[in-house]
């Protein structure tokens, strides 16, 4: 059978750096091809070239045997290529229907949002998605935003569909739904290129797996008879352990104490209702829940970034209710934020400026208002070495790091500050297996040293393998508490979906 899409010798250079090196690849009609690779291996770059967003430095794209060049996404779209991007390509200020309608006006003037909304509802029903076409995207939790992205691609009716890490923010149930959707699309003849760091779902969904490393194809396997361990080895080049080594450690005094806390979100709607909890020294408390049930607000409350409307937050005996973020920092509160680019780092700041974001005003990094660059650089060099942050130079901007490496830098900054309490949100979102392994080991190390850790993650496996206790957050309330021997994905999944714990 003739390949519907063939890549021949695709090379892409950004300046002197070559991100892709002579990649050749064929995609058959009705096939689900999974693309694997470490962070920064070049997966997204390759997809962006197919979609016409980037121009290849060398090489050729063939569609059904015919050479094509896509000067813009418009050209790719008109050849039946659809793509869900790794980073949301949504206009937050627009409604879902409007987002889908962008660029769709045939006659340019007719805008039939009602029609599109109806089509969306049909699509959503067919693929078991739940999206209100008239909701403003900015008001949707990330999981739903991801669904909007998928709906957008489905609505295009593409013959070749590219999904670049679509499952990062989805719940297990939603992931199952997506896998079904992809399989049924493939059955109808659509070719799908699927990118993910979750090896189990890759094995489940794909017909064929291609692994990239440093811009080159390093192997191709069929999912049959392949284990996650095999895949990990192909990607990283060494063995990876999936189960972190969590040894029991003595639980100390309560560090974070929240008492009947209430808060509202940015839209003025109640986000946290009557939350009371405690996190002790040497303990990891996991918060499980579907995104958008108050996790973001919870993390902001315990770091001073959001005001409470009622209740109290006490950290290491100090009442910090509605104090400034600085007061929390001074009380040795660490925070690995949800959005590493927006909150965790600052655009244009170099690695060494990023590494001292919170203590640039303290000795030894500054003295009577004057910064000590040398000390800042030394400190950063130490962090970078310790946490194996891959970079060109310490002076490059932190935003130019790959996602995983930026995450490592932020973790290094927060953990090495020896916090009494640290809140960690989605610490491994988007990371490759090697990086995940490392991050987990560092969190456990911090716990061993006596930090109280609040781990917020939508990754159920991650929470179960790390946490000493799991609290389930649903609609701003804690609806259940489980100890390690009670961990059961099905039960937790039910609680996350709103079923109250009996008793």
């Amino acid at each position, binding site marked *: 059978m003739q390949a519907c899409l063939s890549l021949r010798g695709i090379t892409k250079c950004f300046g002197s750096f070559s991100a892709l090196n002579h990649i050749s690849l064929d995609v058959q009609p009705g096939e689900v091809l999974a693309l694997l690779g470490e962070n920064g291996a070049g997966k997204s770059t390759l997809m962006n070239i197919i979609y016409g967003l980037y121009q290849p430095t060398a090489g050729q794209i063939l569609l059904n045997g015919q050479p094509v060049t896509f000067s813009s996404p418009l050209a790719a779209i008109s050849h039946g290529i659809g793509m869900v991007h790794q980073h949301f390509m949504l206009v937050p200020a627009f409604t879902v229907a409007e987002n889908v309608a962008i660029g769709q006006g045939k006659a340019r003037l007719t805008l039939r949002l009602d029609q599109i909304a109806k089509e969306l509802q049909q699509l959503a029903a067919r693929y078991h998605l739940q999206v209100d076409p008239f909701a403003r995207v900015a008001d949707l939790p990330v999981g739903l935003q991801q669904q909007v992205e998928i709906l957008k691609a489905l609505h295009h009716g593409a013959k070749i569909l590219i999904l670049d890490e679509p499952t990062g923010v989805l719940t297990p149930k939603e992931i199952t739904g997506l896998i079904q959707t992809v399989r049924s699309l493939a059955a109808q003849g659509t070719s799908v290129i699927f990118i993910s760091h979750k090896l189990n779902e890759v094995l489940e969904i794909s017909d064929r797996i291609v692994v990239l490393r440093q811009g080159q194809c390093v192997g191709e396997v069929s999912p049959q008879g392949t284990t996650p361990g095999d895949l990990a080895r192909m990607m990283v080049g060494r063995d990876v352990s999936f189960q972190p080594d969590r040894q029991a450690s003595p639980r100390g005094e309560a560090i974070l104490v929240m008492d009947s806390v209430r808060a509202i979100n940015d839209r003025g709607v109640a986000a946290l209702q009557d939350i009371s909890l405690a996190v002790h020294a040497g303990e990891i408390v996991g918060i499980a829940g579907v995104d958008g049930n108050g996790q973001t607000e919870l993390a902001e409350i315990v770091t001073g970034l959001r005001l409470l409307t009622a209740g109290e937050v006490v950290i290491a005996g100090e009442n910090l209710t509605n104090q400034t973020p600085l007061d929390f920092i001074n009380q040795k509160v660490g925070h690995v934020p949800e959005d590493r680019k927006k909150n965790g780092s600052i655009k244009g700041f170099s690695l060494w400026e990023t590494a001292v974001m919170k203590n640039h005003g303290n000795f030894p990094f500054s003295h009577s208002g004057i910064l000590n660059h040398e000390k800042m650089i030394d400190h950063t060099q130490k962090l970078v070495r310790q946490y194996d942050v891959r970079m060109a130079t310490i002076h490059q901007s932190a*935003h*130019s790091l790959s996602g995983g490496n930026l995450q490592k830098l932020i973790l290094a900054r927060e953990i090495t500050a020896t916090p009494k309490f640290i809140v960690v949100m989605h610490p491994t979102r988007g990371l490759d297996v090697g990086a995940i392994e490392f991050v987990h080991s560092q969190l456990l190390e911090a716990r061993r040293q006596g930090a109280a850790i609040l781990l917020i993650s939508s990754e159920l496996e991650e929470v179960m393998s790390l946490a000493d206790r799991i609290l389930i957050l649903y609609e701003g309330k804690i609806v259940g508490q489980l100890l390690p021997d009670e961990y059961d994905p099905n039960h937790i999944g039910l609680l996350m979906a709103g079923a109250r714990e009996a008793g």
Partner: protein
Amino acid sequence: MDVDILTGSMFWTSVIAATVRMAVPIYLAGLGEIFCERAGVLNIGIEGQMLTGALAAFFATYYSGSVLTGMLAGALAGLAMALLLGFLCIKRQLDQTTIGVLLNIFCLGLTSFSYRVIFGISATPPTIPPLAAVSIPFLSNIPVLGPALFQQNLFVYAALISVPAAYWLLFRTSLGLDLRAAGENPRAAETMGVNVVAMRYLGLCLCGALAGLAGAFLSLALLGRFVDNITAGRGFIALAIVIFGCWKPHRVLGAALLFGFAEALQLRLQAVGMNIPYQFMLMFPYVLTIIVLAMTSRRTFAPAALGQPYARENE
């Protein structure tokens, strides 16, 4: 001072009519600015585009005798200047603030130079008959409002009609949606097959043409002549009312009317002999703008990518 005058209906009719006259040019320019800012381009050069439009309109009317030709020429001249800005800021991605400021200086020079070359210096500068008012039957008989709103010239009616038209274009058409997407998230728009560059040029062209018309209003409708720097900073006011009006045509009209009202009122209070230093009277519209802006801008509605140059392969 004649206090009784403040309570007469004549007074308010005249204030409202003056409000409308003062508001129309800044509204037209502000409407244009809505289009280009919605597409993501901050057009600080709008003052220069108004100025060029004012001269071109006057020139064309003077030699052709037709006001319509003049309006067309004004719109085209403003558009030409907008295209110049587009080349530099969209194609070459230069800083929009700098280029806008430079364009204003350039247009000030260009217009007074051209006027001088064409008409020379004289104590009796050339004029054309200012556009006559057209009164609308029935409506113009409504007390107070009638004479104020419905005995105006064509520009005023055009401005009023343009509110729903612009609203429709921006919010009820595909083109408007694509244009707004280019100003909110150009990269997302691009992945949806929108030609972001084209949308930005489109917004800028609409802006230039409307700014040119706003200039034409001054030279054709209001004064029947051109003088150096005839716009006298009205372009900057237009920039302000766009923010003030949350990038929506009807609100921008409201903002323009508020500003026009402040101007009309301060001149009338001076005319009836209010005894406050005139500088404070003249400050009134600007202070009012700041106060109202401060009270209303808690939530921002600015297009998210406003002022950011868009290049494809950039991060």
